[in-house]
């Protein structure tokens, strides 16, 4: 099996883009804050190398085996990143915000149902059934990821929880890439994975991902705005205020139970 000139360039660019992002994550000390995201990038470096050499020296069966095994890992890690981003936004004091927990589960449920419905509508033209499953699988994960990120955005805007700078940047990149993924996988489904136009959709997706990588490299390299420091006086006032609020609310809640 051989790669076309443009595909080879995109693969090489992707490999070095991932390496550059890894360097940024490690040298700028972002990796401890985003362990799943770092694992995702690391797995993509590994994936690029394994798939490249399997494509060059292996058989179709070996490529198929590695492609699917690594795709499952990739999608799993992407959902772990969604969880990581959600936990950064919706756990402001270490536990899930009570007004977010149920809604997040609803968003997940609705997203899965909507994703399955849209995927059921897709009838990708492919010579063998396994290719149709590849297209449907990719389409479903793109739909689900984009829904989850938009859902999180809506929920955070509604309940008023802020996104820290780097969390917002990672989510924007992954969310936008997923949206483009919906478009390209829909193209694969409508025109067929073996059509002449199919490689264009793949290339659009790869270029979009490279843009996303570049965005992450720049944004994660930049320092997030420094949080402001509380004075000792204000800190003690805040603790007193917190105790007072809790006391007031406990009275109010006790009344409601009557």
């Amino acid at each position, binding site marked *: 099996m051989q790669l076309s000139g443009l595909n080879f360039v995109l693969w090489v660019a992707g490999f070095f883009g991932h390496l550059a992002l890894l360097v940024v994550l490690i040298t700028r000390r972002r990796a401890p804050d985003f362990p799943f995201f770092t694992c995702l990038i690391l797995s993509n470096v590994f994936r690029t190398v394994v798939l490249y050499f399997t494509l060059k020296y292996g058989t179709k069966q070996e490529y198929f085996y590695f492609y699917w095994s690594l795709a499952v890992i990739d999608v799993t890690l992407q959902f772990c990143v969604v969880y990581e981003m959600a936990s950064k936004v919706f756990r402001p004091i270490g536990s899930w915000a009570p007004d977010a927990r149920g809604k997040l589960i609803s968003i997940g449920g609705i997203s899965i149902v909507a994703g399955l419905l849209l995927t059921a*509508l897709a009838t990708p033209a492919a010579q063998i059934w396994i290719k149709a499953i590849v297209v449907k699988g990719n389409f479903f994960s793109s739909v689900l990821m984009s*829904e989850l990120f938009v859902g999180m955005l809506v929920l955070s805007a509604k309940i008023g929880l802020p996104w820290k700078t780097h969390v917002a940047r990672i989510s924007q990149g992954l969310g936008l890439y997923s949206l483009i993924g919906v478009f390209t996988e829909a193209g694969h489904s409508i025109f067929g994975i073996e059509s002449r136009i199919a490689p264009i959709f793949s290339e659009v997706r790869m270029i979009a991902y490279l843009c996303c990588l570049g965005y992450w490299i720049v944004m994660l390299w930049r320092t997030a705005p420094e949080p402001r420091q*509380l004075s000792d006086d204000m800190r003690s006032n805040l603790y007193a205020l917190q105790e007072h609020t809790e006391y007031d*609310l406990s009275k*109010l809640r006790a009344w409601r139970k009557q």
Partner: protein
Amino acid sequence: MNSHELIFLVGIVIFLAILLGIAIYSLRRHSRKRGVVDGDWTKLLKRIEAVDRDNVKLVALDLIGYTQESSESTQIAATDIWDLIGGLEGLEVLEQNCAVLIDLAFYLQQWYPEALAVAESLRLNAREIEWHVSRLRAASQTGKLRNSFPDYAQRAIATYYLMTKNVLALYEKSNFPGLIELQRAL
């Protein structure tokens, strides 16, 4: 392109349009909040509508069970609560101010990680009032507003009162600009 593919294509277009529309709308809401983060107090304070703080305090303290003069609840009648707050419209003003208070909590969470607990408490209280008002709105649609009003409204008002008291105390201690305007409005 057969009819099945056409249905799929239409489905995708609708899906992407809805998703993009929602995302853009939410990003705009976030950028309004970022206005607070950037310190644009004028815009924020313009969104606050004046309420009769004395009436709010009266209704709230009646529920909490003490007043400045006495430790006994005065048990304000339901019709009086309705009049003191100005009915559902008055409650909706409180709801609108709650949205501004959520933005203030947003500001605190964004910039003062140490104040997360207080900010989160304020945010949850504001959300609680929103919930009470939404129940009242539902009751108004089913014609049961007068019966439901005392139950939900007084709780909402009491929570609003406690919350604004906390916010004012917090901003007073922090010497944030715009405090006098905030005190007037809340």
